[in-house]
């Protein structure tokens, strides 16, 4: 063994990086050879010296910047807001800065011809559900607080398209097939891929336009604007209308709400994401019809991007969106549809309104195994609501 290799052994001996045989041999050599002893001492001196090197002190705590980067608006904080104010989503939406210039209508991933897509129907089906009325309904559900309505009435805040296959559901909230939901006072969600077979195991898991009670029965009642209330009823009516010919199939629709800040180019983000999940579609459902006098957030208009996709594609989308800077995973709603009888004059008025909407916007068929994703983007400046 040459001298360098032998010296390397002393170095490794110092570091405790020799195997038993090498260690024994080197220890014996050091014991017998003064040069080896000298080298060992020198190396020990160097080692001690290296450990006295000046320290570079970090001048700021990186925790907050890192968390902001990975999670632009901490979910916990949002849920705290939910707890603090049952009009939480008004708060959340109002928090997002305004965005003046945004795409008006976006339909992504239309690369394949429709006929070809239809052939894939059984495998993974995605439909565009261009229902402005539904978006408006969802917005109202979002922007309106829970009201102390009787069970059937609140349940009946339904998606119109879903009403075509309507529903009586036992549980108020049922997780979508590939989402594990943790229910608590502050609703939280843990996303996880669906276990094989899990998706089809429950009849309740068949999503499609479902109706809804976006707020579960848990919280304290909050006053709701008349218009919102009326509109909710109108949705209920629409649901009932479409139930007539619907099979007795339980339908669910899970709605995810994201807030977007104006720094991000949401159109391009979604295009990028949907390239990966080629069967997720996006539609800009327009501006929410808010009455400026009815609520604090009414001063703001919102664009709603309503994404439809099958669970797998939507899961991919959600996961990706969670990491998009400037986009906040705000909350999710599990919505169900239910039976809702016409009871009042007010409902009749709502029904008329719905009919008018129907004329303007055809309702697509409900989408099986579909999860809905909504991105709300403010389009004009507004003051945060007073809480």
């Amino acid at each position, binding site marked *: 063994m040459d001298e*360098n290799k032998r*010296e390397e052994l002393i170095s490794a001996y110092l570091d405790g990086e020799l195997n038993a045989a090498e260690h024994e041999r080197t220890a014996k050599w050091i014991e017998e050879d003064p040069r080896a002893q000298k080298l060992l*001492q020198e190396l020990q001196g160097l080692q001690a010296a290296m450990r006295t090197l*000046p320290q*570079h*002190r970090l001048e700021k*705590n990186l*925790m907050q910047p890192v968390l902001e980067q*990975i999670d632009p608006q901490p979910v916990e904080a949002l849920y705290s807001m939910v707890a603090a104010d049952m009009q939480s989503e008004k708060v959340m939406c109002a928090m997002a800065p305004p965005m003046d210039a945004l795409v008006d209508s976006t339909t992504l991933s239309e690369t394949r011809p429709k006929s070809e897509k239809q052939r894939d129907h059984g495998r993974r089906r995605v439909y565009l559900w261009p229902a402005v009325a539904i978006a408006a309904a969802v917005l109202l559900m979002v922007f309106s607080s829970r009201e102390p309505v009787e069970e059937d009435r609140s349940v009946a805040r339904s998606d119109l398209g879903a009403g075509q296959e309507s529903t009586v559901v036992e549980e108020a909230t049922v997780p979508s097939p590939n989402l594990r939901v943790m229910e608590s006072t502050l609703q939280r969600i843990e996303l996880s891929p669906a276990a094989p077979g899990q998706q089809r195991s429950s009849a309740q898991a068949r999503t499609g336009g479902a109706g809804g009670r976006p707020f579960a029965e848990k919280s304290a009642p909050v006053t709701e604007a008349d218009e919102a209330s009326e509109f909710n009823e109108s949705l209920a009516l629409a649901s009932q209308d479409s139930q007539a010919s619907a099979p007795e199939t339980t339908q669910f629709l899970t709605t995810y709400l994201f807030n977007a800040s104006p720094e991000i180019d949401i159109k391009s983000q979604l295009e990028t994401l949907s390239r990966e999940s080629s069967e997720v579609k996006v539609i800009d459902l327009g501006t929410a019809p808010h009455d400026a006098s009815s609520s604090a957030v009414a001063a703001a208009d919102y664009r709603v991007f309503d994404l439809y996709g099958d669970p797998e594609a939507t899961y991919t989308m959600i996961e990706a969106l969670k990491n998009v800077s400037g986009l906040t995973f705000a909350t999710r709603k599990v919505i169900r549809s239910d039976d809702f009888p016409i009871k009042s004059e007010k409902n009749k008025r709502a029904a008329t309104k719905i009919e008018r909407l129907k004329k303007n916007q055809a309702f697509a068929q409900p989408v099986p195994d579909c999860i809905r994703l909504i991105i709300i983007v403010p389009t004009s400046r507004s003051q945060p609501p007073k809480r």
Partner: protein
Amino acid sequence: MKETIPSVSQDDLEIIKATLNESSQAFGELVEKYQARLYNSIAHLFGPRDAEDIVQDAFVKAFQKLSTFRGTSSFYTWLYRIAFNTAVSYQRRHKTTTSLEQKKEKIGDYLPDKHDRPDECLEKKERAEKIQLALYLLNEEHQTILILREYEEMSYETIAEILKIPVGTIRSRLHRARICLKDAINQVLHKDFE
């Protein structure tokens, strides 16, 4: 005796699980825990000017890749690997080179021993700064391996994994680096260092 790569601590594992299962906020605990150590090391290797950005970037990347962390090494080692790679690509991207003069300007703070007398403290501080300068005289390869071994006290196996070179190479390179450092210290101190 030969060390092995340390496995992830129970505390870290729980934080990682919490981050993956519940909230990204839990990840903040890992940032708190390791930021100073990682920054110090990266600042020694790549200079303090960019170290903060590199460390922040490394934490973000670590968060994004957290689900791929298998727990076969300590979290810090895994994080360090990310930070090291981030720093290397950062340097490549920005083509930064640092002159010795610039390096002299960015020597860190000597941490005095509380038992030292003021004159001892000053002497040690000067000595530590000279060792730092001597380290800067070495090539990057030698600086890196010395920091990883002597400062981070990483095992040869861990260093090999971070630098992507065989363990046998670590042994020889480390020894050469030590000999070079000894010469450099002599050069800086103008006297033998023993």
